[in-house]
Structure formats: C-alpha cells, structure tokens
C-alpha cells in the first residue's frame, strides 16, 4: 500500500467533533471524580491498581460491547446492540492496526485511521490488504445490520421483546439519526474510492457498480464530506444526548467494581449513573406505574432524564415512584435509580420537626422476665389483625416465650419517614424503638411487616437477630416445634418487594408453603416479583392509580385460579383485599390454619 494523500479539508468536521468530545470527556471526568468523597477516591485507586481492574475490563467487554444482559432479555435486541457497538469498535481497532502496518508515520494524525481508504492506494507489491480489508468489510456489514435492525425496531418493537420504547428529546433525535447515517455513508464513501484504495466483498462489490458513474476518486469528495460531517455532528451531539452512556458506562463499571455506591447526595457516582442511562427503555415495561396505571412519564428512564436536565417535574416523579425496584432489576446498565430518587426526596425543603416532636411516645419499661422472642407486629399488621392473631396462636402452640412489643399500638419503624425524605424525624423514631428493643432483653426480634424488617435490618444496627415471620415459621417447622398438616390446596405466593428483591428472602416462605399445600409457580416469582401497588414508597400516587396497579397485579397472580393467594406482607394483603375473587391470606394465617390446635 502506498500513501496517496495525507490531508484533505473534509477531515475538519470530524477532527473538530473529536477534539470537542475529548475535551468534554476529560473535563467531565475530572469534575466527577473530584466530587467523590475521600474514601471513595481511595476505593477507586484500589479498584484501578489491583486485580479488580481485570474484572472491570471483562465486564466492560461483556456489557458495553457484547451487551450480555440485553441478550439475556431478548436475543434480537441483544444482537442489535451488540452489532452496532462491537462492530464499530472493531472497525476503529482494525483501522488503527491498518495505519500502524501500512502508514506508521501517520499514526499521530487522529483522522487518518478513520479516512484511511481515502488517503491510501493499492499497489501491486502489497498483500492488497486482504485479511484486514475483509475484516473491515465484515464488521461494516455487521454494523449496517444493526442499524437496519434499529430502523426496523422503530416500526415493530415487539419483535425485539419491547412493548414500549422511550420518547426522544431533540438531542437524542439528532444524535440517533446521524448515527444511523454514519455507516451507510461510510459504505458509500469507501465503495466510491475502492477502485483506487481497494476493498473487500462489500466495498469492492458496490465499488464495481459505482465505477460506472464516477471513476475519478477526486469526484467522490462530497460523499467523504458527508461522512465526516455525520461523524462530527454525532460527536458534538453525543454529550448532550443519550449516547453519553457509551463513555460513562465504562467509568460506572470501574467505580461499581471498586465498591462505590450511590451516596446521600446526587454527585459523584450518582452523576455518572444519571449520564450512563442509555434510555433504552427496558425499564418501561416492568414499571407498573406505566403498564397498569398508564403514567408514562413516571418511569425511571424519564426520571433520570429529568434529573439530568434539571427539569421541574423531577421531584414529582421521584415522589410518585413506588420504589419497588423492578426498574433497577431490569436495567442493563445496572443503574440504582431508586437510590437517586431517594436523594431527590431527601433534598426537598420539608420541615425536619423539632426535638420534641415524638416526646409523647411511651418510654420503655425494663422487664424482669427476658423473653426468647420479641414480636413486633408493625402498623400495617394492626390493620390486618388476622396476621397478629395467627402469629400469637402459633407462638402459643409452639410454647414460645415471647413478648408482644407493640400490642397496645405501634410506634412506626421510621422507614415511611425515611422514604419520604424526612430523615431527622425518622431517626427520632428509630432511637425510640431501639431503646424499647434493648430494654426487652430478647435475643431475636420477629416482625410481621417487611417494611419494618428492612428498617430493622438495614438502618437500626441492632445487636440482636432480626427475622421476618416467614423465616421464623420455617425455623419452627425445621425444629419440629410446629407440625402443620399438608392439604390438597393450591397456593400462589406473592413476593413482596421489600422482602424478596431487597432482602433476598425467596426460599423460606416457599419451603413453609410447600410443607402445607401445593405451591404453583408463577412468572412473577423471585426477582421478577410484582408490586401490589400499595407501597408506602410513593407519596403522590392517588388511590385510583394504586387500585389499577393492585387489580392488574392480582389478576396476573391469580391467572391459574389458585385456592389462595398467599402474601407475607400485611400491606400487600390489605391492598389485594377486594381486588380479586381469590382468597388473600398471609402466610401466618395459612400456617395457623394448617395446625391442629386444641
């Protein structure tokens, strides 16, 4: 191969775009890393200069290029993303190898590898670029296939396993259409010059046709200009569009693997998470506010966009969310949007309350008898008294030495206040409850409410073991202290968000239920559990919207007409009541009914 030219003015739009994006990314990265707290900076240093970096590199390869998580969701969607990302990456890589091999002196020119075919010409003495030309054409074809699929996805998204896709903003539209234009333009440009520069099956094939129209390579300049302009526009639009996820996602993976989590404020890794959202829309279908209540703008993808562009609606979207965590589960990038929503809630200007605001609450009384179990029913359980009565009956049946902590009325665990962003008030309740728990002298705290369970487990730092009653019932059965009778009934179990997705309690309730009845599997088991719609995570959803979600969820769960829909959360039970013809019972009630109590 031999150099034909080393410069032409058409490279300017591309070079400008490239300089712009590199400066932008360096400044942005410096600002973001600077905003990290000190400990996180140390963690990041440890994450980069240790074995962890190899895990990060592997994950970057698998997620940013191959898009493994999207493949798991739908193979066509995965192939579409993979072909564009991996194909383009390979073309850039191979182009640099070509320059290194055939024109090593030009390696320092940033535009040279991109427009290699324009600057070089074939000679008889070289290998005619055989393998590299073939690979370049192959990856161009792969990328073009991806672009074609992306265009088809606009018409028929269901083919790609999506019912809904994201509405675009202006920046996204510009960036997306220029991205679509880049590869066909590249094909045209390289084909037009292929009689001079050479090419493989794709470019040379088209080139043979195009030669009939234009044979002088200098006359193909307009198409090279168009290609360069498309690249330039795309790179200038990239930081202002959803395609910003391409560079930020890599940084997010490195930070996440260094053990850095979203802090109390929306800066540092939270900023990176916000910019890493590719607005692929995979959180739209799982979101029940979208699918059941038709609140399209409340999905996480729009929330992250609102935060990023500092829109007015941000706070309302954050407050409306049920915090069920299904979007976090579905996100292929792994953005913890719930933590970012919580930060927005924490920052709103609500009064914090005075020191004395809960001084009316009863003080703990030290008891002589130390109980084995301290039972905390929780506010919601008092609304569904069947659960606490069943639990008491089971305790008595198993001869458990227990103390009912909130028999005469619950002091809230504080989690609803924390979720609403009232941190100071919530902590006052936590202090009050902590004192009562410490005074009781019990070794195990059993609670019936998953909301309280999560609060006790995650925010209280209790010196004693905390169990949800599903875990405790399993323990009682294992130890043989209760022996429930197996019946011929059909049960469906509903995973509550706080207990399953957030606390990883999947097996225990299923073990308990299998010992008393036949447990039907549903498509919403485990991590795919659906929200009942009653979640206290939301302060804005109206009762009508909640009911729509509840009816939809109940219908989905009772599709196979079980004898009973079993819940483990009093709030889920209360929400599902009157939404379905099927019996809705708590796991404690079901176990109590299966016991032979004289």
């Amino acid at each position: 191969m031999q150099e034909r030219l080393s410069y032409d003015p058409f490279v300017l739009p591309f070079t400008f775009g490239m300089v712009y994006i590199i400066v932008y990314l360096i400044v942005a990265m410096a600002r973001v890393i600077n905003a990290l707290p000190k400990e996180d900076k140390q963690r990041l240093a440890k994450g980069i200069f240790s074995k962890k970096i190899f895990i990060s590199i592997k994950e970057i390869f698998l997620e940013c290029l191959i898009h493994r998580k999207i493949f798991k969701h739908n193979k066509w969607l995965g192939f579409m993303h993979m072909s564009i990302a991996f194909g383009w990456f390979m073309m850039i890589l191979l182009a640099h190898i070509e320059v290194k091999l055939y024109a090593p002196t030009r390696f320092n020119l940033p535009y040279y590898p991109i427009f290699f075919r324009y600057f070089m010409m074939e000679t008889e003495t070289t290998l005619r670029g055989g393998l590299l030309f073939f690979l370049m054409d192959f990856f161009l074809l792969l990328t073009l296939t991806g672009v074609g699929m992306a265009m088809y996805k606009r018409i028929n998204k269901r083919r790609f396993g999506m019912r809904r896709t994201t509405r675009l903003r202006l920046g996204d539209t510009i960036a997306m259409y220029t991205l679509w234009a880049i590869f066909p333009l590249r094909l045209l440009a390289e084909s037009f010059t292929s009689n001079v520069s050479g090419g493989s099956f794709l470019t040379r094939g088209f080139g043979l046709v195009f030669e009939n129209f234009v044979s002088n390579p200098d006359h193909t300049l307009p198409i090279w200009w168009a290609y360069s302009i498309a690249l330039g526009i795309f790179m200038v639009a990239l930081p202002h569009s959803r395609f910003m996820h391409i560079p930020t996602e890599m940084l997010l993976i490195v930070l996440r693997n260094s053990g850095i989590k979203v802090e109390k404020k929306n800066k540092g890794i939270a900023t990176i998470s916000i910019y890493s959202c590719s607005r692929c829309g995979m959180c739209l279908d799982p979101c029940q506010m979208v699918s059941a209540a038709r609140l399209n703008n409340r999905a996480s993808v729009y929330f992250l966009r609102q935060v990023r562009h500092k829109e007015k609606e941000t706070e309302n979207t954050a407050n409306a969310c049920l915090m069920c965590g299904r979007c976090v589960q579905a996100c292929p990038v792994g953005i913890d949007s719930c933590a970012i929503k919580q930060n927005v809630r924490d920052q709103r200007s609500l009064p914090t309350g005075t020191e004395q605001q809960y001084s009316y609450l009863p003080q703990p009384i030290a008891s002589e008898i130390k109980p084995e179990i301290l039972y905390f029913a929780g506010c919601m359980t008092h609304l569904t008294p069947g659960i606490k009565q069943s639990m008491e009956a089971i305790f008595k049946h198993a001869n458990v030495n227990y103390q009912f902590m909130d028999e005469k009325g619950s002091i809230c665990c504080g989690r609803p206040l924390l979720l609403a962003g009232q941190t100071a008030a919530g902590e006052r309740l936590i202090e009050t409850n902590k004192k009562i728990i410490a005074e009781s002298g019990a070794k195990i705290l059993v609670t019936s409410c998953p909301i309280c369970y999560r609060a006790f487990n995650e925010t209280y730092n209790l010196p004693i073991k905390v169990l949800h009653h599903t875990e405790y019932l399993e323990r009682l059965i294992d130890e043989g202290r209760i022996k429930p009778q197996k019946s011929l009934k059909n049960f469906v179990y509903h995973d509550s968000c706080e207990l399953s997705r957030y606390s990883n309690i999947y097996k225990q309730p299923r073990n308990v239920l299998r010992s008393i009845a036949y447990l039907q599997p549903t498509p919403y088991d485990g991590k795919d559990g659906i929200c009942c719609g009653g979640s206290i995570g939301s302060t804005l959803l109206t009762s009508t919207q909640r009911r729509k979600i509840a009816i939809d969820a109940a219908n989905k769960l009772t599709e196979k007409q079980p004898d009973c829909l079993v819940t483990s959360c009093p709030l889920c039970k209360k929400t599902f009541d009157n939404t379905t013809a099927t019996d809705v019972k708590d796991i404690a009630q079901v176990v109590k009914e299966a016991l032979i109590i004289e």
Partner: protein
Amino acid sequence: MPDFGYTINKQRVIDLDKNDGQTVRRVRQLEPSINICIGCGTCTATCSANIFTEFNLRQLMLLVTRGETANLRKDIEKCMLCGKCMLACPRGVNTRNVLLAISRIFTENE
C-alpha cells in the same frame, strides 16, 4: 352552685373572611384528593399516633379547610407517616401527602 357536668362553650366565630384561605388553596393544588374527604374520621380512629397522644387528622383537615391554621404547626409534627389512615380511608384520600403538603406550605410561608 353544684357541678352538674355541663359547661357553656365560649362564643366562637369562624370568620372566613379573616381566616387563612391561602393554605387550603395551596393544599388543594398540591394534593387535590383533600376535596373528596367526607370527614368520617376513620383516619383518626386508626391512627398510630392517636393511640399515644391527641392527634386528630380529621380535625386537622377540617381546621385547614376553614383556614384556622394558627396553632397547627406543632400538631402536624406528631404524625409518624405510617400510612394506616391512607389504607383505612373509605374515600381514598392520600392523607400522607395532605400532611406533607401542609407542612411544606408552612415551611414556605416562614
């Protein structure tokens, strides 16, 4: 005079012209479901805080509607936001957000 257990209430005039009409207007904007409240009192009956102290959500909402907001600041703080009232409400008033809206307006007015 012997005490028969009867008292005479002090004369009390609700002057809607002089009362604070701003707050309720703002609450209605922030949480429109306050409009459908029928004042049945189920919220108060089920209230977690009301078990330990005098905290009457029904009265509180009535006072806000009437514009008698002068002494409410302290009262609102007592709420633990547990959400039982919201589940018990037969009309589906989003009681938690009514309270959050009121306290937000108080902060804004300061």
